[in-house]
């Protein structure tokens, strides 16, 4: 019996598709051969997982469909609910005076406690930094507007799917590998859109919440493999004060936006050595955008900004991309992808306008959907 026949027999045995005679025969073989017994157990486990998977997938689809139908029918009004923020403002104006007095007393205690908090729980930072992915409603609205303007262009977002988040991304390998932030990919699938507004289907190959990096692969027949990357991916760390710039899609009209700044610290939020602190005006939607220096080198990936300090943003260091590729190579599932990072120096122009012109075709707007 070859492998395929054996697989078939095991599956038919487990799904109850065997005749009584065949079944007794198979059970005898199973008893006599521990390897086959092991394979049956393993396959039973696999089929059980597959069953759960299939049920969950099908139900999730129904679940979302019903919700969207009811939503479209106007069953609920998203805005109707009392907003917490307006209540807070009301409270604030009402008790302003009292708070001011209390604040001066409380200030000292608060400073002390927050210092203690930082000391003991350096990872609690939810309120102080902001991810730069775009808010959902904004994209949805924009999608509608675009729908009116460009009726003839069909979107590649599957029917019944809803856009849930968005950000920026860029090619690291011309075979179609695009890097973005893991927090940009809140949905199940994604498409990428280039600076000309062309959409491409993409699959999520890898996503790691710890490093906040994710890898997409463009899988679309419309995608034409680009020429060699016009930038190098820098492995060494960059110098303080270095001039940097970024290109991303923070706006909803899909226009690429240029931003300029400098590297302000070797470490990121709370001394995080995986990121740089940079001085740049960062808007939501810049998440996943590349950060370049003057020498046509990619030095980082935009990821978050500090909530209270204007212009302070954090970029994941580019050497983390080398770690990512190493992880891919070590993993059974992804080792065949053969992602290559460009380490060759690119001589190109150092004129900023020429650089932007060269780079912009390698930068994408990323949209995740459910």
């Amino acid at each position, binding site marked *: 019996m070859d*492998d*395929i026949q054996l*697989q*078939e027999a095991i*599956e038919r045995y487990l799904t109850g598709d065997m005749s009584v005679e065949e079944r007794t025969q198979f059970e005898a073989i199973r008893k006599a051969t521990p390897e086959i017994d092991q394979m049956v157990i*393993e*396959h039973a*486990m*696999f089929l059980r*997982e*597959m069953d*759960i*998977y*299939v*049920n*969950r*997938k*099908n*139900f*999730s689809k*129904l*679940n*979302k*469909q*019903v*919700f969207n*139908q*009811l939503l479209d029918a106007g*069953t*609920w009004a*998203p*805005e109707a*609910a*009392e*907003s*917490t923020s307006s209540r807070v403002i009301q409270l604030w104006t009402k008790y302003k005076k009292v708070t001011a007095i209390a604040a001066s007393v409380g200030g000292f205690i608060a400073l002390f406690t927050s210092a203690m908090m930082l000391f003991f729980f350096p990872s*609690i*930072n*939810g*309120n102080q930094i902001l991810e730069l992915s775009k808010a*959902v*409603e904004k994209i949805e609205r924009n999608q509608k507007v675009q729908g009116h303007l460009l009726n003839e262009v069909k979107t590649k977002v599957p029917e019944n799917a809803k856009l*849930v988040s968005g950000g920026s991304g860029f090619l690291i390998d011309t075979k179609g590998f695009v890097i973005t932030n893991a927090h940009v990919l809140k949905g199940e699938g994604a498409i990428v859109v280039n600076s000309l507004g062309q959409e491409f289907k993409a*699959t*999520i*190959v890898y996503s790691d919440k710890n490093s906040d990096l994710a890898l997409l692969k463009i899988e679309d027949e419309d995608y034409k493999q680009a020429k060699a990357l016009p930038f190098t991916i820098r492995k060494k760390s960059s110098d303080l004060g270095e001039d940097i710039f970024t290109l991303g899609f923070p706006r909803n009209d899909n226009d690429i936006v240029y931003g300029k700044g400098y590297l302000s610290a070797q470490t990121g939020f709370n001394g995080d050595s995986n990121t740089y602190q940079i001085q740049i005006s960062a808007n939501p939607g810049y998440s996943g955008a590349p950060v370049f220096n003057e020498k046509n080198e990619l030095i980082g990936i935009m990821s978050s900004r500090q909530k209270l300090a204007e212009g302070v943003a954090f970029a994941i260091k580019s050497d983390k991309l080398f770690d990512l590729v190493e992880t891919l190579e070590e993993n*059974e*599932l*992804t080792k065949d992808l053969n992602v290559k990072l460009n380490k060759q120096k690119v001589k190109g122009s150092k004129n900023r306008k020429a650089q932007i012109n060269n780079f912009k075709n390698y930068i994408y707007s990323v949209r995740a959907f459910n």
Partner: protein
Amino acid sequence: MKAELNEQALLKGLAQNDSKAVETLYKSHFSMIQHFVTNNNGSFDDARDIFQEAMITLYEKVQLEHFTLSCQIKTYLFSICKNLWLKRLQQMGKYSAPLSSQEETISVEEDLDQFEKKDAALAIMDRALNSLGEPCKSLLEGYYLNKKGMQELASQFGYTNADNAKNQKYKCLMRLKKLFFAQYNIGE
């Protein structure tokens, strides 16, 4: 008594993927969750996300052979949502005071643990399927997900007959299993 019968019928419908049952559950209970989430630092979309997750938890619970629900559907869904929302607020570092609500709740930690465990296995399956490539991915999805017959799949994928398609399916299946078990810990 009548209300109880209705709830049983509803759960039965849910177990059978009946869209009417799903619709009824949304119509009767989503507003409550929307109200709860939006009054506790969340948006409409947050409410949608956690309610959909709660629906899946309930769905997977009613799939179980010896399934019992020891409370009203409303209480169950609310308890799940409250738990999920609390967790999400903590993840965002927003949580401070106890959440405001007057609804009664029951303990649902066990169900949520189950859900999370399943979630992990499902993510592995998803990644394995997605890294298979074509035609394997669509062939296996056609067979297992969309329950198509071998004859239909053969003509869809251009195989000369059902036997060829079957051979291809088993080849793909063996690759999928290899990928799946490379990450799935047996007897975790």
